[in-house]
């Protein structure tokens, strides 16, 4: 088996490394976070120029037909740099919904503009009571003479305030919690009837709660089949989960490198603290966490690209999320602990890496959610095998 990047992937990795070193150092990021919008348009344009926005899109829309595996070096670089721009929400979530369930006309209207950097997207799906269940959609969409009326609230819409278009899930049939009856809609957030309550996430990204008050949509706002969106949503959430697994590997690598450097240079009790065996052993555990996380990230990215059975695919996604959540928690806690008091300060980039790691550990499902989901899916596969 070959776990090395191919030439194209290496090229992207190198180009991104140069970009981060030049334009996305910690000071540059601090200025972006402090800005009113909380993200940089010029960074977004650079990502467009590097081909990173086009990477996972289809060739017919100006893309490179890349999959999760091709995005691994990109996400790792973003995890190292702690990128706050709307890459995950645009390419990992909303564009995936459009690519997988949109009509040819819908795709042609949006995706080329995403590839060129002219459009940013967001995915409004989570609701207040939902926790991590994708079928917990209560917000409704009812038929009107000319299309649809959306009414309800979505929360924690990542990069909602920056999006030119938002993919919104709403129920066209069934009760909250049922698998059937969920639909996806393409919404212009500037339309009357849409209001934002913007804030920042704990890992310093713009987000918003979005309120839809009798929002009137045309027929062609519906993405895919009415009532049949849940399999697409689950597909997309699995894809996005694979991406944040790869992003975590980059963040973990940064935290480990910083901690190792600190152990080798910080002196106390007339020696470097890295000479203490207790700390050496813990640093080794951090290194092991990185290796195991990298392995699971490789596995999950390959699986979301190639596994056609949703049960088998989701089982691996949950396994990866479990292992990577553990790695995120260990590395975040240990890296701050071993830096001592300065690890608590905003002035140190590491404390910001801590924030991103703690969010990734919970993003698209926390440990308990994925432990339960893995058990259920594993059981399904066992029952299926027994039945044969």
């Amino acid at each position: 088996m070959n776990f090395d990047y191919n030439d194209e992937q290496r090229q992207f990795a190198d180009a991104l490394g140069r970009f981060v070193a030049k334009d996305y150092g910690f000071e540059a990021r601090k200025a972006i976070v402090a800005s009113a919008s909380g993200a940089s348009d010029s960074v977004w344009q650079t990502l467009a120029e590097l081909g990173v926005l086009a990477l996972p899109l289809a060739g017919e829309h100006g893309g490179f037909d890349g999959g999760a595996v091709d995005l691994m070096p990109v996400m790792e670089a973003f995890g190292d740099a702690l990128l706050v721009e709307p890459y995950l929400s645009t390419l990992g979530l909303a564009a995936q919904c459009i690519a997988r369930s949109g009509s040819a006309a819908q795709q042609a209207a949006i995706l080329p503009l995403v590839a060129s950097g002219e459009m940013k997207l967001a995915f409004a799906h989570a609701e207040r009571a939902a926790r991590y269940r994708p079928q917990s959609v209560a917000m409704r969409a009812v038929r009107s003479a000319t299309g649809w009326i959306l009414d309800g609230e979505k929360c924690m819409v990542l990069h909602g305030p920056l999006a030119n278009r938002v993919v919104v899930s709403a129920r066209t049939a069934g009760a909250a919690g049922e698998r059937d009856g969920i639909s996806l809609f393409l919404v212009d957030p500037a339309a009357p009837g849409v209001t934002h309550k913007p804030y920042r996430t704990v890992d310093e990204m713009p987000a918003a709660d979005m309120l839809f008050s009798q929002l009137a949509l045309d027929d062609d706002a519906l993405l895919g089949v009415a009532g049949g969106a849940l399999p697409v949503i689950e597909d997309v959430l699995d894809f996005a989960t694979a991406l944040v697994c790869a992003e975590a590997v980059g963040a973990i690598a940064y935290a480990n490198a910083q901690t190792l450097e600190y152990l080798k240079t910080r002196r106390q009790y007339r020696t470097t603290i890295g000479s203490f065996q207790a700390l050496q052993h813990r640093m080794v555990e951090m290194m092991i966490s990185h290796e195991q996380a990298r392995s699971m990230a490789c596995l999950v990215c390959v699986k979301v690209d190639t596994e056609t059975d949703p049960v088998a695919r989701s089982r691996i996604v949950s396994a990866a999320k479990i292992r990577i959540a553990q790695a995120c928690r260990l590395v975040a806690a240990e890296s701050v602990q071993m830096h001592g008091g300065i690890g608590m300060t905003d002035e140190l980039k590491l404390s910001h890496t801590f924030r991103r790691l703690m969010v990734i550990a919970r993003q698209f499902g926390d440990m308990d959610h994925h432990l339960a989901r893995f058990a259920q899916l594993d059981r399904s596969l066992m029952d299926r095998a027994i039945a044969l």
Partner: protein
Amino acid sequence: GSHEVNEVFLDNVRVPAENLVHKEGQGWTVAKYLLGYERLNSGRIAPSKRQLARLKQLASQVCDDGVPLLDDPRFRDAMTQVEVELMALEITNLRFLDEMRRTGRPPGPEVSLLKLKGTAIQQGLAELMMQAAGPLALREYVQYVQADLAAQDDDADAFLAAITSRYLNQRKVTIYGGSDEIQRNIIAKMSLGL
């Protein structure tokens, strides 16, 4: 992200001679004496008991697929582990106090374990609160510190965001007042003679 600690600069500050505490050159001895008492309190047992009660209340209100988190065996077991540790810590603390009372001796090196276990419990509770709060807790708290809480139209949001702030802030408890590593060294050297 909020302001809690300060750097203090002392520039040729004049102190009257009568303000010398204990004897000259004995500062570290005084500090070690104080630190023993600090560690006795660093267990934070009463605040943790209050946090545990708040956690149970939150867990009884938060439902996943209709089941309160309190009744989810996975969550309940994690909570039980912390609760049991807290029970043990409280009794250990009382035993140490009892021995001090009987012997008249100041806190010994073994009280380091009160800080070690007490802070692990604090962080464990903060972790479980985050878990109970779920995805909605992943918001930045600073804006609530600075804004007028009365102007917030949703106290539930402020409550959730405070959980996150506490979770982040409590990473310090295993570092300040003598880090976990120092506490273990103290026990190893002074209690176990290693």
